[in-house]
């Protein structure tokens, strides 16, 4: 039933498994949808969608599948009329024409629909006395909720609901979509990911497991037997390198919030942050103002910030080619005898885990952005959105 809806949801990026799909059918069997499209909308959403970030995707899939069924109430009246009268054939034509018009925009084969419609009318004649036939009728996908009306079950009976399409059309969950640009709270959530993965770290068992020791000692006839466990502390160390100024100015607020979020999530073992302008060269600035003199040597950073720090570079990677490839490409400070590209490669060699977050990354291949393409080859680059940040965090934690 509704198999096309299942696949539309899948196509929109909702991760639905058979377990949930069967649960939805179970719900329909138990008539939890209240025989209305709106009821179906809420039931399906509660069962199929597991995060408010996915509501928008669900809304769009729902709209795509059921849009042809907007005229819920008028159909009810017509159908009831039809049920009262006996001149079926005449009305059938009228209904047929009406439906053929309706389904046109759903790209359905006309003859197919006609046939289905006739079949269904036949079935209903014998079934509608039997009571709740609605779900069965729902199977004739293109007609959706209509069956409910014919079967004599109340439509839209659960008052107080917003119509499903009013909800869908408003796309009120758009803000929750996780491919949207981030705000501070969402940043913090994302950085918490680094904590949650930390319990999986492969570190030696160094803490005394008191409960385990007691259990083992008791099992050992009262002779002490020590048990050890892995510490539950977060061992993650972060090095944050941020591009500041120039083309990054439009994203100042965003970067500021990212910075705040990292420092607020005080569960890391250590956080260090430095700034750069456009590209990384011989000096790393201590403040976002990037003032000459207020810096450390990039070599010094390599020596003092171990290679097991996880590095997050934030920048738009929009350097001019000479800024990346020329040994004198740094127009703000010293190049240290190496080009920007060489410095980036040094960084890549030194640190085991590096990700690049880009607030305005081009989707897919973008050969016209030469520097961005070059940097992408060196570091895994993610767009600075909830989704991108989450992916980046996973990348940082996995081997």
């Amino acid at each position, binding site marked *: 039933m509704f198999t096309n809806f299942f696949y539309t949801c899948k196509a929109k990026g909702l*991760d639905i*498994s058979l*377990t*949930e799909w069967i*649960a939805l059918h*179970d*719900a329909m069997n*138990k008539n*939890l949808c*209240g025989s209305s499209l709106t*009821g179906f909308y*809420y*039931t399906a959403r*509660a*069962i199929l*969608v*597991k*995060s*408010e970030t996915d*509501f928008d995707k669900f809304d769009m899939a729902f709209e795509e599948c059921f849009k042809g069924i907007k005229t819920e109430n008028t159909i009810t009246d017509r159908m009831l009329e039809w049920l009262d009268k006996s001149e079926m054939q005449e009305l059938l034509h009228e209904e047929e024409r009406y439906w053929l018009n309706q389904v046109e925009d759903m790209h359905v084969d006309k003859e197919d629909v006609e046939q289905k419609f006739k079949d269904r009318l036949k079935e209903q004649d014998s079934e509608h006395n039997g009571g709740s036939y609605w779900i069965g009728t729902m199977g004739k996908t293109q007609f959706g909720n209509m069956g409910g009306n014919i079967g004599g079950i109340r439509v839209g009976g*659960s008052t*107080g*609901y917003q119509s499903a399409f009013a909800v869908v059309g408003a796309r009120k969950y758009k803000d929750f979509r996780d491919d949207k640009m981030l*705000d*501070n709270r969402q940043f913090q*959530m994302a950085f*918490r*990911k680094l904590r*949650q*993965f930390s*319990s*999986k770290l492969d570190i030696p068992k160094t803490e005394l497991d008191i409960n385990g020791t*007691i*259990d083992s000692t*008791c099992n050992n006839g*009262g002779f002490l037997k020590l048990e050890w466990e892995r510490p*539950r502390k977060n061992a993650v160390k972060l090095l944050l390198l941020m591009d500041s100024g120039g083309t990054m100015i439009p994203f100042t607020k965003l970067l500021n919030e990212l910075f705040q979020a990292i420092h607020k999530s005080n569960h890391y073992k250590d956080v260090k942050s430095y700034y750069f302008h456009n590209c990384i060269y011989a000096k790393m600035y201590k403040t976002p103002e990037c003032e000459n003199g207020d810096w450390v040597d990039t070599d010094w950073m390599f020596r003092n910030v171990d290679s097991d720090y996880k590095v997050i570079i934030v920048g738009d990677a929009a350097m001019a080619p000479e800024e990346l490839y020329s040994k004198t490409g740094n127009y703000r400070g010293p190049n240290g005898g190496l080009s920007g590209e060489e410095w980036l490669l040094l960084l890549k060699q030194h640190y085991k885990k590096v990700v690049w977050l880009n607030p305005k990354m081009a989707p897919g291949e973008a050969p016209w952005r030469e520097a961005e393409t070059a940097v992408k080859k060196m570091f895994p680059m993610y767009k600075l959105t909830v989704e991108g940040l989450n992916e980046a965090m996973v990348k940082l934690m996995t081997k």
Partner: protein
Amino acid sequence: MKTNFKSTGEYIASEELMASVNIAAALEKPLLIKGEPGTGKTMLAKAVSEALGKKLIVWNIKSTTKAQEGLYTYDTIQRLYDGQFGNEGVDDIARYIKLGKLGEAFDSEDQVVLLIDEIDKADLEFPNDLLWELDQMEFYIYETKRTVKAKHRPIVIITSNAEKELPDAFLRRCIFHYIDFPDEALMEEIVKTHFPDIEETLLKNAMQVFYEIRSYSQLRKKPATSELIDWLNAMMIGGVNPEKIKAELPFVGVLIKKDEDLDIVRKRVD
């Protein structure tokens, strides 16, 4: 099993939420509730238990909570002591098995409402450790070789503040509901269940300021329903002139908890 949850005298639920509760009860699956802090996630379980006339068992999750604690604990230390002092009944392990909240819910003679509060506080693996138990509503006590099986499947309500992502396998078994922040009409209804005879102008002016403050995007912590209720209560006790709410922001500390936010609000309202 037919359960029907409606708003109670104390708790106003949206139609959507009521439908979700009823779906979860009918399908016998746990209901996972997410939503902004202060939208009444925890209150829901209380309201459900009252509306259905069933006992409420609350299992508060902390960062150190382990799944096993919810099932049962085996008090080995007590047994060791008892053994050393030769107390009676040491042979009987069952004496040292104490059921946790989940165990209690399963073992209850009547159907209960079980609230697993703030499940995201616990360790990452916590929800996965409960998959079987929540699915089958039974668990096995190894020490006594006894299976505790739910006599009546409890109505399980789980709340989460989305601090951690919950594992997919766990989510698949849940009915999900996100509590939207109530709009003004619903909020008015909620307030009136708490203060049935609140002065209209006070409520109107306070709500206006409240929703305006909520619209400031820079706020670190937006005030929520519970803060509004406290604020109204404070103003009613303090006898504030409703006309001056906007200008003076009396007791604003009840509404806004952070210094930085307080500055933002003061500046904006001026």
